[in-house]
């Protein structure tokens, strides 16, 4: 039984998953990284590879509402999951409050950490709508930024929290 199972799984698999609200089916090896499937098969290049070992957070996406490093997720484990990438955050041309705040506060410089950073902030604000500065700093501590020193990022998240509360 195991032998036949092995033969079957060495081939490409069909994996269905919902990405930014749309049902997608990809053919992939089960150990392909979710990051690579998003970027190479689905053309969603907003998630970036910075380290390939779950340290920098630039590949962050939401998997069933939980922030994950997509470089550490084998695509088979994302089967039937609901994935949100940076491309799915804005509603059409209308930017999300967080995206607007990052623009205004200088939270994005080179931009490479920005998609992951915004998703980490989004995940934080869902759980803690009124975070303290320390909570913001902790919530983003898995997302490395080499440009800003994080100050304007933390300010952007605080600003977005205020605006979401006021809305």
């Amino acid at each position: 039984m195991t032998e036949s199972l092995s033969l079957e799984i060495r081939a490409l698999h069909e994996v269905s998953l919902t990405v930014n609200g749309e049902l997608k089916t990809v053919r992939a090896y089960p150990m392909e990284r979710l990051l690579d499937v998003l970027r190479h098969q689905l053309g969603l290049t907003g998630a970036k590879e910075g380290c390939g070992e779950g340290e920098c957070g630039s590949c962050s996406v939401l998997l069933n509402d939980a922030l994950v490093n997509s470089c550490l997720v084998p695509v088979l484990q994302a089967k039937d999951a609901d994935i949100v990438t940076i491309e799915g955050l804005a509603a059409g041309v209308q930017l999300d409050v967080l995206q607007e705040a990052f623009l205004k506060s200088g939270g994005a410089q080179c931009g490479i950490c920005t998609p992951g950073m915004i998703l980490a902030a989004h995940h934080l604000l869902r759980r803690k709508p009124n975070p303290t500065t320390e909570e913001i700093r902790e919530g983003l501590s898995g997302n490395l930024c080499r440009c800003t020193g994080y100050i304007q990022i933390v300010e952007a998240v605080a600003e977005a929290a205020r605006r979401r509360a006021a809305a």
Partner: protein
Amino acid sequence: MRSNPADYQLVAPASLQAVVSLLAAEPGAWLPIAGGTDVMVQYAAGKLPARKLVSIWNLPELRRIEVSPEEIRIGAGCTYTDLREHEVVQSEFSLLARAAAWTGGIANQNRGTLGGNIVNASPAADSLPALLVYDAELILISVRGERRVPYKDFHTGYKKTKLASDELVRAVCLARRFSGYLAYTRKVGARNAQAISKVCIAALGRRASGVVEDVRIALGSVAPVPLRLAETERLVTGKPVEPSLLVSAKRVAIAEIQPIDDIRSTARYRAAVAGNLVAEFLEKIGEN
């Protein structure tokens, strides 16, 4: 990415029973993968020897925390986030909740599991000193059935455990008898988040009639396995906390550990800091 996905197999059985059957059919051939925070790192670096992997991520049987009046039973597939957010873990097993909160960033806490931390068996693993001081017991499962082993006997050497080739860690059991203790824990790493420990400590203590009545101290990253400081505990038990005790406790603690020089720190530094942490803990008992 330094591995070729086409060279790897990954299956995701729907039940725990199916997983252990697979492990039994080819003992040692299948590597369980939960949240991937260790396995996928080795894989991406081209350093994962196993070619056949079985996913145990999100198996319902492994992702439960069951609370009875005597004990709390934590499924091995519970994530650090699950631990951090669980009320009983927070209130009665704060050392474990704290360790979970400083293991990696939020994304890794959402995927990394307690069982993974245990079987990966790194001496620097953040949750293991807490398991030592709480006298954790592990439930191991295979097609042969379940067995219950004390965690303190499980971890036998550097990255070595008593897990049989067809076994999985199913759950971690903690007896609910530590709420009267002062809990102390610190992680000393190269930075405040996302760091691998240079030294970490988890400790419980209780003072009565002016003396240390009971004390339990465990350290990580100072020996091939996480270590209970039995000699130090014996030394301080029954004694009042005073400066001379701190000095001798430091000395005995340093003699009990076997830290090394590596890429993260030095043996001398680790020994000194380990001693300081033990002393700081005892001072806190004294103030309590």
